[in-house]
């Protein structure tokens, strides 16, 4: 038959196809196939949470909530999307392209200063793991010693807020500064200092026989809430129950991660070859003090204080990373979803 007739025949056949399927109004199960057991995932709401880096111990509680089914219990099919350098996390959450994100307080405030409306609802890591790592042999015992010890090379990403804070607080002009490039160079030079997270690099250094000393930024007064659960005003006002659900599951996840991290760490190690299980296990032991400083009760994990936020705003203004009065501390976070 002619091409035209053939095309008409095909179109007629295709228009009959929808009638072959039983109609279903369930968007999670459009084929409406009732003959086999619906897998649980078909009934859960898909939700994406954007992480600020590749999966690591600092995301442990969220992964625990995933692995142990706490998100599923809340009716949520959560996807934890790993991030990396250059991931547009704040932009994605502010425009509601992704409803939730995980990032740190200083990054949040810098985003808010650029009119990105991102709000923190949960702060599982109360004290920042950010530190400067030095060798015991260098004799440096606290951050101020960096000013007076000769011959020190400091490897860090100097545009980071903590770096600008330290540069302002201490006179680091005689230090040889270089770009952070991992533990390798650290191991070769006893006078080498580098930026680190106290939940990972010290373990890696010790494994290679070094004697690292961690100098916490929080001891110098710069303490950012870490691995905050972030969302935007649209989700907070339009879907408060969703926020409550995600937060409830995350809290359970963090409580589980701090006490029983084995299965979660196996999962994380599988996702991120750079983080073997022994490093993650070390991270969990260090996280106890960071997540629950001063014996914070388990059910208060994630709490936030206005004073901490106000201090951070002031510090960022002082190091000129945000303009004065560009950010109101009170609007950067909300405690309405925390149980206390």
């Amino acid at each position: 038959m002619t091409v035209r007739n053939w095309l008409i025949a095909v179109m007629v056949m295709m228009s009959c196809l929808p009638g072959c399927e039983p109609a279903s109004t369930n968007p999670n199960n459009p084929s409406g196939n009732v003959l086999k057991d619906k897998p649980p995932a078909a009934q859960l709401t898909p939700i994406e949470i954007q992480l600020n880096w590749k999966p690591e111990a600092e995301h442990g509680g969220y992964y625990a909530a995933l692995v142990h089914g706490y998100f599923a219990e809340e009716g949520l099919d959560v996807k934890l999307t790993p991030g990396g350098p250059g991931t547009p996390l704040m932009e994605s959450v502010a425009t509601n392209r992704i409803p939730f994100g995980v990032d740190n307080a200083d990054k949040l405030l810098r985003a808010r200063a650029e009119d990105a409306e991102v709000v923190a609802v949960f702060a599982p890591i109360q004290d920042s793991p950010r530190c400067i790592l030095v060798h015991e042999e260098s004799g440096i015992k606290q951050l101020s010693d960096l000013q007076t010890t000769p011959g020190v090379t400091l490897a860090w990403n100097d545009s980071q807020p903590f770096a600008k804070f330290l540069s302002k607080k201490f006179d680091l002009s005689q230090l040889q500064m270089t770009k952070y490039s991992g533990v390798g160079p650290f191991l070769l030079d006893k006078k080498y200092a580098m930026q680190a997270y106290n939940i990972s690099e010290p373990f890696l250094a010790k494994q290679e026989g070094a004697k690292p000393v961690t100098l916490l930024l929080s001891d110098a007064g710069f303490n950012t809430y870490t691995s905050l659960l972030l969302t935007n005003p649209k989700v907070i006002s339009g879907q408060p129950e969703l926020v409550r659900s995600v937060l409830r599951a995350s809290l359970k996840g963090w409580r589980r991660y701090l006490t029983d991290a084995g299965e979660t760490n196996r999962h994380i190690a599988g996702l991120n070859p750079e983080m073997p299980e022994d490093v993650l296990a070390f991270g969990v032991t260090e996280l106890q003090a960071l997540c629950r400083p001063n014996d914070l009760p388990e059910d208060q994990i994630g709490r936030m204080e206005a004073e901490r936020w106000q201090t951070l705003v002031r510090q960022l203004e002082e190091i000129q990373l945000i303009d004065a009065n560009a950010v109101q501390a009170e609007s950067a976070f909300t405690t309405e979803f925390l149980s206390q």
Partner: protein
Amino acid sequence: MTPNAHSWSRAILPPLLLFVVVLVVWEVAITALRVPKFILPSPLAVAQAAWKYGPELRTGLAFTSGAAITGFLASFVIGTLIAIAFSQSSLIRSSCYPYAIFLQTVPIMAIAPLIILWFGTGFHSVVLVAFIISLFPIITNVTSGLLAVDPDLIDLFRLNNASRWQVLWKLRLPNSVPAMCIGAKTSSGLAVVGSIVGEFFAGYSEKWYGLGYLIPAWKEGLKQDRLFAAILASTLLGLAIFTLVNVISASVLSRWYHVPNDES
């Protein structure tokens, strides 16, 4: 208007007008659609940022252009020498050419951090990255220019008892000049890209930093207006170097192509 001025205005005016139209549409779209500044800044905001951060952009531009030009000149000289070696020995050519191709295909974002690790941070490593990425077009173009000589001319030289060196210097090299220019145009643009990528990983000192240092730093702070200004500066740098190479090529080639005319 003189013919020259007329042809210049025909070349410059249309793209300039288009540029102005695009700027106006961009500015209007930002305002009308209320695009937040951390997604896309308005042209005015970019212009203001370029003004306010002029000193930083100038420092960055100086460092990056220095690294790009140095890397490009190195790749031009060394690439030509390698191409000469390739043209003189088929053994060298067949054994080494595949590795030259490797230079073309290796992803620079993977190589740059390795170079920084092995050679340290600083200007020399950025130049090395720019050099590596811009080497291949020179090698490949100059090699083919040196080899693609009319065989009759080679016979002519041989008949006159020309030495290998005379064939190279008086026949092959002049023959390769047009190909050299083509290679140089490609390499110059790649050298700028290589410098900026190298600077992503290479770091800085307090006084010296390149555009490739400013771009990630501003991106991280969501400072899109400054980021766009830096990207614009990088583009203009690439354009400037490309234009310079083009102008030099055109003057060299016009001199070259005049020779047959003078003889007739």
